[in-house]
């Protein structure tokens, strides 16, 4: 079951904040976040395990609410380098395969 991401696209000015959401209809074991720039392979950002933890990576952080089966990615004071498509990948409890959402395209303008 593919997770659903929202919004599908975001356009920001440099320095603004953004939130990308990822939700699943299944109980989750973990959520992965990746960023993919045009013509390149996805690059790992962070992984969140069940337990409601929040992680950070520079000015990018994420939370995981296992009861709601949702995760959110927070980008604060966005930089031009943050532009790209963000994918969440979910691992169901008991499953072994990582299923990716359809992606959220983030555009940062100067």
């Amino acid at each position, binding site marked *: 079951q*593919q997770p659903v991401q929202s919004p599908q696209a975001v356009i920001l000015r440099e320095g603004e904040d953004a939130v990308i959401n990822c939700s699943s209809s299944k109980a989750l*074991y*973990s959520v*992965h976040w*990746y960023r993919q720039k045009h013509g*390149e*392979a*996805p*690059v*790992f950002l962070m*992984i969140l395990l069940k337990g409601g933890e929040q992680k950070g990576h520079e000015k990018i952080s994420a939370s995981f609410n296992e009861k709601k089966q949702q995760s959110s990615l927070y980008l604060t004071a966005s930089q031009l380098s943050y532009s790209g498509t963000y*994918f969440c*990948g979910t*691992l169901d409890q008991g499953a*072994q*395969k*990582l*299923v*990716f*959402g*359809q*992606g959220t395209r983030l555009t940062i303008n100067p």
Partner: protein
Amino acid sequence: EAGVAQSPRYKIIEKRQSVAFWCNPISGHATLYWYQQILGQGPKLLIQFQNNGVVDDSQLPKDRFSAERLKGVDSTLKIQPAKLEDSAVYLCASSFGREKLFFGSGTQLSVL
């Protein structure tokens, strides 16, 4: 540390022809994945190996796609015969267990 190696980088073929992609994962990574990424979409898992055994191939079109991972290291993905809708980027990834995935640069396939 060497990354995931894939070849070729680009491939153009005509429909009904066959094509093969090669992947060499990061040393020590037991789990290897092949994803298909159609333009504008998220990666779709085709097949997942644990060592040289198949964990999941539920979305692999087995009438035309095949994959193998000999000796639990390198892997090849083959399409025979190719269809127009197979045009996509084929991404190989590897991981240590359920941890983060490391992706290769991918093979961009165009079927004419």
